[in-house]
């Protein structure tokens, strides 16, 4: 008889899954908690500071707009990171790719003169190709010469930066602007604003489409399956007959393309000319977004929203109170450390597993006696 012991027992699989989610959530909670502690310590008016940090971003339409504007480029770089890191390549040239993408779009928007709709599309394509180039270099160096992308991609970022600044300063600089910047973009190239009273532009829609595409590609198509298998165990992929090097290149080219497209969308949507003076940090933020999302593009919008929200919160807080905006960097670093730390919450998980095992044992015992 099994009636008496019909109570369902969690399987180890469920425990494992539960803890992967828990790790991310607890990581974010701890990071926020520490941020609150810091606020309490350094602020003369901690409650007001906290309030503007938590509720501030939602108080006006303009601020809500700021959240969406902040998350838009992160959708692109976040999905880009999903592609590259799913193949287990630590290629951080998404950062340089983003800037090169902005450069590509700038060239498209100032040199070419095309009708609306077509013009931004051409600019994004150009930006994407530029971004793909940034990621191509570390990728091919690894495939051909086994040089680890961790180092080469960081170097590549500086190369990208100087390429972009060099071209802007020496080729398409507008002498009429009072600071180093390109000529203004053709109006046909700029992305339409979609909500009055904010700077929210069509880029958010393109970004969401990219996230959907990324999910379908990585998790629902054969090419995405290849990327994930190569990333999880390259030897296994080769043994199974997958073209490992091709897959590695493909994942990074797509990632670079998306990062570059993000750069294009950002300048075309937010600005009227290229006016960056250095690397923008959007690529590194994308790495954080990708990590929080567990390299699943479907989760990227949520992760990007979270980051956008605390960014705007910190911004509001720093303007209304006595807290510096750098607080956000602290929160970010704590999240990264806790989320990527595989052994974080390990003891708790292990205890849970032992408990499950005990219940299982007890059930076996009962079954054996009956």
């Amino acid at each position, binding site marked *: 008889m099994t009636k008496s012991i019909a109570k369902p027992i969690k399987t180890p699989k469920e425990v494992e899954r539960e803890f992967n989610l828990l790790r991310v959530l607890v990581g974010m909670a701890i990071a926020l908690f520490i941020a609150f502690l810091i606020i309490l310590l350094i602020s003369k008016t901690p409650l007001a500071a906290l309030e503007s940090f938590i509720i501030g971003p939602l108080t006006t339409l303009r601020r809500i707009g700021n959240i969406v504007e902040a998350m838009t480029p992160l959708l692109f770089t976040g999905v880009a990171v999903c592609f590259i890191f799913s193949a287990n390549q630590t290629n951080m040239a998404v950062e340089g790719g983003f800037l090169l993408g902005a450069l590509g779009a700038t060239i498209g928007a100032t040199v070419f003169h095309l009708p609306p709709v077509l013009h931004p599309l051409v600019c994004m394509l150009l930006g994407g190709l530029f971004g793909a180039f940034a990621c191509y270099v570390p990728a091919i160096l690894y495939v051909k010469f086994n040089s680890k992308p961790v180092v080469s991609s960081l170097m590549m970022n500086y190369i990208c930066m100087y390429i972009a600044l060099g071209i802007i300063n020496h080729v398409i600089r507008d002498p009429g602007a009072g600071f180093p910047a390109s000529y203004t973009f053709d109006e046909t190239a700029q992305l339409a604003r979609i909500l009055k009273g904010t700077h929210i532009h069509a880029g958010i829609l393109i970004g969401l489409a990219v996230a959907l595409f990324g999910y379908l590609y990585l998790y*629902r198509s054969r090419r995405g399956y290849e990327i994930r298998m190569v990333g999880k*165990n390259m030897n296994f992929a080769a043994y199974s*007959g997958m073209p490992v090097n091709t897959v590695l290149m493909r994942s990074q080219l797509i990632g670079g393309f998306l990062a570059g497209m993000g750069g294009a969308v950002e300048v075309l949507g937010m600005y009227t000319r290229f006016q960056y003076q250095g690397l923008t940090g959007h690529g590194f933020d994308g790495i954080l977004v990708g990590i929080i999302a567990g390299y699943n593009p479907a989760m990227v919008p949520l992760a990007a929203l979270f980051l956008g929200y605390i960014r705007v919160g910190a911004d509001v807080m720093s303007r209304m109170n006595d807290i510096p905006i750098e607080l956000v960097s602290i929160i970010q670093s704590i999240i990264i450390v806790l989320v990527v730390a595989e052994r974080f919450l390990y003891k708790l998980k292990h205890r849970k597993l032992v408990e499950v095992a005990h219940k299982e044992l007890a059930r076996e015992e009962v079954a054996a006696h009956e």
Partner: protein
Amino acid sequence: MDTVVLSMENITKVYSNGFVANKNVNFSVNEGEIHALVGENGAGKSTLMKVLFGVEKPDEGHIYLRGKEIHIDNPIVAIKSGIGMVHQHFMLVPSLTVAENIVLGMEPRKKGFFSMERAVEITEKAAAQFHFQVDATAKIEDLSVGKKQKIEILKALVRGARILILDEPTAVLTPQETKELFIELKNLRDEGLTVIFISHKLNEVTELCDRITVMRAGRSIGVQEVKNVSESDISRKMIGRDIQLNIQKTRAKPGATILEVANVSKNSSTSAKKALDSVSFRVRRGEILGIAGVEGNGQTELSESITGMNKDFEGSIKIGGLDVRSHSIRQTRENGLAHISEDRITYGIVGDGSIEENIISDRYYKPEFQKGPLLDFKKIDALADGLIKDFTIKCDGRDQPIKMLSGGNMQKVVVAREFTSGSSLIVANQPTRGIDVGASEFIRNKLVELRDNGAGVLLISADLNEVMELSDSLIVMSDGKIAAYFEDAGSVSTDELGEYMLGIKTMSPDRIRSVAGND
């Protein structure tokens, strides 16, 4: 006179993947006995010994040494307490001499510098005391497996071990080396040492040991005097049921040649010797060709070359007429190759992947699994569920990460993939290593079934019983060369095989040549 020297009480160990390796295990050994710890692979023997040696921490339970409770947090504590362990994989530095390895971590010094003379002295004194014959100045890499094992034992003894754990010591030895080891172990027992002998070879246990503890599925089933039990008693306790030890198979009906290996040579990556030295043979459809030999005599290189994993070799290899070197692994697989790798974790599976992801890795790209630009998950799910059922894979469902399965079930996932790809040549390299008897039996029967359906099978195995039982014809490899070829595997004795494996005997080139089919 039977004094309990060590006892472990109520040991429970849960691994972080949720696998319960030990369930309330009690185990104790007496002074001056050879105590066998037997059980199927995965029964928890190795885990129990790792707990004893401080490699794994138990979740519950106590360990008592001479009546006093001790906490063995790491191997250093174990060694200080007089517990020594000889692992399956030797922990020796190949480029150093025997003496240097023996004193590793406790190096004798003279004027602050390492003293080679004293190291040799220590080694020779210990060797004399325990009746071991070793050359203290020889380099480890030049020694045979049997000799290396002796060094490992000596290393533990020099560190003051009174309790010696040997984890499946005979798995890597030839029959002759095994006999020698047994004599030495009996000597040690007579000196008053305690030996814990882990094995699943019952004939060895009855020959060598005094008492026996049987483990099954993480529990200890009981302790007995070896003289009071028969092998079949032990076997029944280990398995929990009677199993049929012999595979039923009819005579092979060889057909067309499916694998042709011609004059394959390969330089060794670790030594000046050749890993493969003009090896030629063929495998025909409908036959199982076994390759026996002590591990490390070229089997790994041979299987890597045939399966396209490593194309850096001389000579030619053709599968179904297709040259392996000039084609990709995918092309070779499409041309009929199935491959069970000896290194399951590195090549055979992707540990972080689900069971389903592991099953489709060789066929996910085929048109039948596509629906528009996406994968047809309805079909893939059905395939995975079907194979899980057909191959009786014990799991929580097709989306469970494969790393959470036991070794036997992982291997079943591998064979579920490799045996259903419609292949005409199966290269099975150590297909049942480290997995339980039930799964082994299942895989062996499947190999015979595939043979009967017209596939050629190349079976590489260090398990002599397995190759002898399954093979129709048999090759013995030694030093990268084919040392012997037996057209009828049934006509060979283990002793004879052992002599060829050790390189004591070699067949004439003419007789070996007949294996290539050009007689």
